[in-house]
């Protein structure tokens, strides 16, 4: 407890009591002041923040009980300890009923006083910490940045609320950047597993052997470089949720291992012989057409049906027209606060450009665009020039397939970065391996 930040207000009509108690608490490092009556105390309450008040019950004018009543109307969280000249059960009960933390009789045993105050402040600190944590959990459980009023998004959020309490496997479908991981987090935090870990595995970013080791862990010496035993993500997710992002990119051999572990909840670390048990819920996400992958033999049918129990389809941002402005304003506030910049709004031209853009990278692209705009903006208003989207391209893309749009956007970024894959991947907010996959998929090569 940082005592300097803790304020104690002593309210008593006797100067000697005020002086003695303020001095007593000041020696312990508390910020301490005193007030000679109820009215002065209420004034001090408006002027500064107080954690605890020691209030004499008998004062001319407003007595301690009335002051207690008035303070509790203004600030429920302040601890009030009533000081009374003689022990009276009636007064004590009345004070406690009005919300006093406790009462003490004059003269006060210093040992009792110190321990009473310390205990009360510790309880208050815990209560405040509890409120903060509840706010964090509440923000997470409501999806944090899962913002949207469009019918598609409202439906998706309703599905999240429905499926979260059940222990069902969930498959989240949607284009890159639509918020699949946020949805997974929202499901996890609203589930009974919320107090256990949510472990994310980006299946698209790893080679076959690396993914196997990442999922199941490995024993020391299992392969070159395995100097220590390492727990895998499946083991770490025990009690919680395993989120398999880009599940469509898992190779066939790991698909088989994954199916087995999902069904039996048992596995062995790579290079090990010990059977490990792990109780986890699976949420997976993909932007691939898994049905097509199954038909083509690239994805195991049994695993597909095991994963595809409950599906949530996330709409692309271009299909959520009414959400774009709201999301843009949300990101503006978020980054202006984070960067401590006075940027408050978008100019009408900037907002028009935002609404007119197709956002092939979806919410992630919009977020990056607003973040960049906040960085470059010198004033309070984001202008069109601050945005990385300068051309209204909705017409350009009209009637084009999603794959075409993605291909052209990736090509554009690669050209802008001089075909520097690392930089392009950073701008696109995908990992390099995924970008290489996409370049291969679309046949994008330098010098074409």
């Amino acid at each position: 407890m940082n005592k300097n930040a803790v304020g104690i207000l002593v309210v008593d009509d006797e100067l000697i009591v005020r002086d003695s108690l303020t001095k007593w608490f000041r020696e312990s490092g508390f910020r301490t002041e005193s007030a000679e009556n109820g009215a002065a105390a209420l004034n001090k309450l408006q002027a500064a923040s107080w954690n605890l008040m020691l209030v004499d019950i008998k004062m001319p004018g407003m007595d301690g009980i009335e002051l207690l009543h008035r303070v509790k109307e203004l600030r429920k969280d302040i601890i009030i300890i009533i000081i009374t000249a003689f022990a009276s059960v009636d007064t004590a009960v009345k004070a406690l009923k009005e919300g006093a933390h406790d009462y003490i009789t004059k003269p006060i045993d210093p040992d009792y006083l110190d321990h009473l105050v310390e205990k009360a402040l510790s309880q208050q600190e815990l209560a405040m910490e509890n409120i903060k944590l509840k706010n964090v959990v509440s923000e997470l459980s409501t999806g944090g940045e899962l913002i949207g009023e469009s019918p598609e998004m409202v439906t998706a959020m309703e599905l999240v609320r429905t499926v979260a309490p059940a222990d069902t496997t969930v498959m989240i479908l949607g284009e890159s950047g639509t918020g699949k991981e946020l949805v997974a987090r929202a499901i996890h935090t609203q589930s009974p597993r919320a107090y256990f870990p949510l472990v994310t595995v980006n299946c698209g970013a790893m080679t076959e052997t690396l993914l196997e080791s990442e999922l199941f862990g490995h024993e020391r010496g299992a392969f070159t470089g395995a100097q220590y035993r390492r727990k895998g993500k499946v083991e770490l997710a025990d009690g919680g949720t395993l989120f398999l992002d880009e599940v469509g990119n898992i190779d066939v051999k790991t698909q088989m291992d994954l199916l087995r572990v999902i069904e039996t909840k048992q596995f062995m670390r790579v290079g090990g012989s010990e059977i490990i048990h792990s109780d986890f819920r699976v949420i997976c996400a993909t932007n691939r057409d898994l049905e097509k992958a199954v038909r083509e033999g690239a994805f195991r049918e049994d695993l597909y049906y095991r994963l595809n129990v409950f599906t949530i389809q996330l709409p692309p941002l271009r299909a959520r027209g009414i959400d774009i402005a709201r999301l843009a304003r949300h990101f503006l506030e978020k980054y202006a606060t984070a960067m401590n910049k006075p940027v408050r709004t978008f100019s009408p031209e900037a907002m028009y450009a935002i609404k007119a853009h197709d956002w092939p990278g979806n919410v992630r692209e919009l977020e990056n665009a607003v973040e960049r705009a906040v960085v470059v903006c010198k004033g309070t208003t984001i202008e069109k020039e601050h945005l990385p989207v300068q051309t209204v391209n909705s017409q350009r893309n009209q009637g084009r397939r999603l794959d075409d749009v993605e291909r052209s956007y990736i090509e554009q970024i690669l050209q802008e970065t001089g075909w520097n894959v690392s930089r392009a991947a950073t701008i696109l907010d995908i990992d390099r391996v995924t970008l290489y996959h996409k370049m291969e998929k679309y046949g994008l090569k330098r010098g074409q």
Partner: protein
Amino acid sequence: VKFIYVLPLGNPDRKLLAGLVPAVWESLRIPVEVRECPIELDPFYDEGRGQYDSTAILQHLKQHPAIAQRLPLLNTRGNAALLAVVPHDLFIPILTFVFGEAELGGTAAVVSYHRLENERYGLPADRELLSRRLQKEALHELGHTLGLLHCPEQACVMRSSTNVDEIDLKGVEFCAECRSDMQKSHPRTGRRGSANP
């Protein structure tokens, strides 16, 4: 602070004072000296409580002409500190008792060993323990006059203690942080290498 005067009031045990002086010197490295002063404590006795008012004693010490005469260094603020040692039970009006009281960042402090005696708690007398407790409480109050607040460190002498068990649990030394704070405002404290003059 360049000098600490220890002032016996109410005829305290001289052997305890004799033990206190080197302990204060050892810890603070500020010259310490016992000075006698004819100050009566009767006016500060509260018949109803059977205790002496420590706040009133402190106020009186600061204003008494004999103090100004006999402890000349006290007249210049910051030059000296005064620690009165009394054998009687002390109180401040709102509290049932205090082991001592000090002016925070000021010049005067008072400490009592009345409640530090084992006999008060139905235990056999222990002079050594009493001496140690008095040293701790004296250093604690002097720490306040040097501007220190209560310290959360268990072993630090500036840890708040409202019963003798807590006094016994804490150490007789200032922790590194309190010592550093003290040396910032009073650079002469805690220097090693010389003897109490």
